[in-house]
């Protein structure tokens, strides 16, 4: 495997999933080129690079194409194995990190989506309740995984930090639009501190979008969605 082959990431600055490989590459100090996709418009290049899911991110490493953000992060960790490790070295800790990352993708993220774009107030409220429950579980997981250190990965940013942390921007958008506090010193003190450490990390701060920029994106996406909805 030629580590020195060119690395490109097909992504979008506002996508939490596309942020994951960028953070991983920065942790490994690997140079890469960003191929930015436009919102609401998939390029022919993306459709060719990921014909099955037609989604970002896609990692292009030489002539290899890797899709699915967490699979990409693991690939990066395995190829550039000598730089700081992203996944824990112990198999059990590794499995636990993956368990919670899967929880983030399969439960937490859908609840966040529901709270923002669910049809009707009831659906949004249900999404919000699930988010609150999810954060309580993640707070516990943080206490157990971090063992008193700043990150889920311990002293260093790891797989689960990346899996969850990429949603912090959109979490703040949710807090503003629903006028509620989700990361809260009383209920999730660990995650409040963790979020600050995460966003200040050198591998994160240049790729984490500002909340106001994301609010503008959510308005654009809502307009596009309304425009493409079938007439009533």
């Amino acid at each position, binding site marked *: *495997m030629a580590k020195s082959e060119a690395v490109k990431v097909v992504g979008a600055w506002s996508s939490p999933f596309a942020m994951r490989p960028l953070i991983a590459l920065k942790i490994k100090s690997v140079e890469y080129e960003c191929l930015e996709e436009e919102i609401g418009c998939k390029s022919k290049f993306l459709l060719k690079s990921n014909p*099955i899911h037609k989604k970002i991110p896609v990692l292009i*490493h030489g002539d*290899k194409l*890797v*899709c*699915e953000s967490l*699979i*990409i992060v*693991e*690939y990066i960790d*395995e*190829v550039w194995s000598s730089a700081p490790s992203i996944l824990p070295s112990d*198999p*059990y800790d*590794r*499995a*636990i990190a*993956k*368990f919670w990352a*899967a*929880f983030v993708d399969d439960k937490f993220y859908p609840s966040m989506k529901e709270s923002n774009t669910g049809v009707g107030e009831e659906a949004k409220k249900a999404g919000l309740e699930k988010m609150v429950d999810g954060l309580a*579980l993640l707070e516990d997981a943080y206490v157990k995984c971090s063992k008193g250190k700043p990150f889920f990965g311990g002293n260093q940013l790891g797989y689960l930090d990346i899996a969850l942390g990429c949603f912090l921007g959109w979490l703040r958008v949710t807090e503003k639009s629903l006028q509620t506090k989700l990361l809260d010193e009383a209920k999730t003190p660990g995650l409040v501190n963790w979020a600050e450490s995460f966003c200040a990390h050198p591998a994160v701060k240049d790729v984490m979008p500002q909340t106001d920029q994301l609010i503008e994106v959510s308005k654009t996406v809502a307009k596009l969605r309304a425009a493409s909805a079938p007439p009533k």
Partner: protein
Amino acid sequence: MMRRRVEIVCSHAYYSCIKIGIYTTWWKAGMAEESVKLLGYWASPFALRVHWALKLKGVLYEYMEEDLPNKSTLLLRYNPVHKKIPVLVHNDKPLAESLLIIEYIDEVWKQNPLLPDDPYERAKARFWVKFFDEKCASEIMAAFSSKGKEQEKAAIARENLKTLESALQGKPFFGGETIGFLDIAVGWIGIWARIVEEIVDVNLIDAETMPLLIDWSKKFLEVPIIKASIPPWDKLLEHNKGFHKILTVAST
């Protein structure tokens, strides 16, 4: 050095393929004392995946059958987040989610590797396993459980199974010359898809459009270690007929 492998598998009723007692095969002299338990359900394809992984690795384990309508306090303690089987408990450390469990088994017990060494090949295997669970298995489940939309969901499942077939790339197994991670993850489809086809009257694994997938499935299910763990067809069919009734009443 005398080598015998001893596999102790204990089961409660229903799982007729796993007998109560001791099978003597090979023993690895000097093996450290380890405790491996699997909480499962006899008719669960997700639990079956883990059985396959453990058996392919020759791992000693104790099987504990869950009565799913009345989940045990042990299951709820070991998997408080999802409250589901399978759960692997290795030296009192519980782990849930079948695919994570299989990767863990592969990392702890190095014999008969399931995932390839090369990072790109590993990424491809993980990609296809995720694709299968999210786009094939879920659509088959949807065809099975949604009254009135069976044909629509089955058509999507067929299209996605055809896409999955392309991952074989002319090899006998998804793992190449021998069974690998993707084979174990997908392998139950040859049984369960046929059960769904019979109960719901849909076409899932299509002989005309997926000949390679059918060939692979026949080969996979004939591998002795794989075949020995499969629950009896009649019992599975009867069980799933009952399950289908419950699901379709719930969806009306």
